[in-house]
């Protein structure tokens, strides 16, 4: 991995932000349609409405995303570790995973809503159902990728299973788990948007769709920008964590 100094990284983020704004502005000048307002009008709108109208929706969305990913990690990582370490568990569970992974979970949304109601539970379950597979498979493969010699030298020390998990399996696969979490994050945001268009009056998905229905394009774009910024911040947090945890690589 090439280590870019952190101020250079911020410079990169700034340049890409400027580029997006320039392109957006150019498009809005060219088309002169109300459906593509100028980025500056949107930014000014965000300043006006953020604390009054958007904050609550952002908090709801953030809570669902973080809750969904946290629960997926809490359930998926131990399962993946067990499958990676014990061949029997893998033999039993892998076919089940491979069989259910390709099922289009979005199609299950009505059933989930019937079973778990229209509230928070069905939204969390939806995110978990889609994201957990990547996490299970990545953590299983991370454990499988640990060289045999490392286990051998620990067993010759008489290490117990708990010690092997603590000293080897968890530290060896942390970085891969974070990579899986990053992939999961992107997926989770897009599922979230979909689930928030049903059965709720809170969340960025609701806010954006509601603005669209009201033909309030400034609000709609404000919602999209805030949703992107939220994703950007979450990705950055994972990057920082990853750099800290996998400094040995």
């Amino acid at each position, binding site marked *: 991995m090439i280590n870019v100094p952190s101020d250079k990284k911020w410079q990169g983020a700034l340049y890409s932000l400027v580029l997006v704004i320039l392109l957006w502005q150019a498009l809005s000048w060219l088309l002169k349609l109300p459906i593509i307002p100028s980025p500056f009008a949107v930014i000014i709108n965000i300043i006006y409405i953020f604390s009054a109208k958007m904050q609550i929706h952002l908090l709801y969305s953030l809570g669902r995303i973080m809750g969904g990913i946290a629960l997926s990690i809490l359930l998926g990582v131990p399962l993946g570790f067990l499958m990676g370490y014990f061949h029997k568990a893998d033999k039993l569970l892998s076919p089940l995973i491979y069989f259910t992974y390709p099922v289009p979970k979005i199609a299950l949304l009505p059933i989930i809503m019937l079973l778990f109601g229209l509230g928070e539970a069905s939204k969390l379950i939806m995110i978990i159902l889609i994201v957990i597979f990547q996490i299970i498979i990545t953590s299983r493969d991370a454990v499988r990728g640990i060289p045999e*010699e*490392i286990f*051998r*030298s*620990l*067993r*010759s*020390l*008489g*290490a*117990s299973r708990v*010690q092997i998990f603590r*000293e*080897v399996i968890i*530290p*060896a696969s942390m970085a891969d788990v974070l990579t899986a979490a990053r992939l999961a994050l992107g997926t989770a945001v897009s599922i979230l948007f979909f689930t928030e268009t049903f059965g709720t009056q809170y969340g960025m998905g609701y806010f954006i769709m509601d603005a669209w229905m009201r033909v309030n394009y400034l609000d709609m774009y404000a919602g999209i920008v805030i949703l992107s910024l939220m994703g950007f911040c979450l990705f950055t947090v994972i990057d920082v964590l990853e750099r800290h945890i996998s*400094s*040995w*690589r």
Partner: protein
Amino acid sequence: MIEIKDLVVKYRRKNEETLVLDNININIGAGDIYTFIGPSGCGKSTLLHVLSGILKDYTGTVKMDGHVIDPKLQRIGLILQNYGLLPWKNVYQNALLGVKIKNDQQVLDDYGRYILQQMGIDSFLDRYPKELSGGQQQRVAIARAFILKPDLLLMDEPFSALDAISREELQDLFLRIWKDNNVTTAFVTHSVDEALYLGSKIVVFSSAPGRILQVVDNSCFRMDNLRFRDEYYEMCMNLRKLLDKDDQCAVR
């Protein structure tokens, strides 16, 4: 004291059975260092796996001080060719690992620090294995094994991945520390030179399936400036002849 009696190891793969070690009988005296030499694939490493308690599928008896080998009860130091360090732990944490697992010790005591100093690795304790040369990594692995104060030290071609200069340097360093501690040691090598340099007795293996051809008393062991002596070259010649003869038998 290690007693190995009628040890037979077979590998089962599908329906085939391969004999790896055939009827091994040998005792390693307490505080002695035995080197095991033989052609590759003769089962030397398999013997170490049995001694380290990793391989349990064998017939015969293998005992240490009258007890069956069990890494949970005995202290076994294992040093492998590719070092076996944990890449996510720095030098200090790697050196600590043995006593951490055995004694739940969280920091190195004076003896541990003394060994680190002896191995010349006390100046880069916070580096990770990928930032070290092969020789430095092996120093860490040796330090880890000695800090454990093992009842039995097992070494599986520990120096064969190193360049000639660091190899001889580490052989000397190892021998010096070993003489201070006198740990019972089984040392597997494929180098005649190394077997003679480090072993008080040299166990010569046949090609597969592994049998003990001969146990040679090393009269050169503990001599100073060994590599400059005639006796050393004479022993070298004898050992090579022994290995060569077996090789020809195997071809026929």
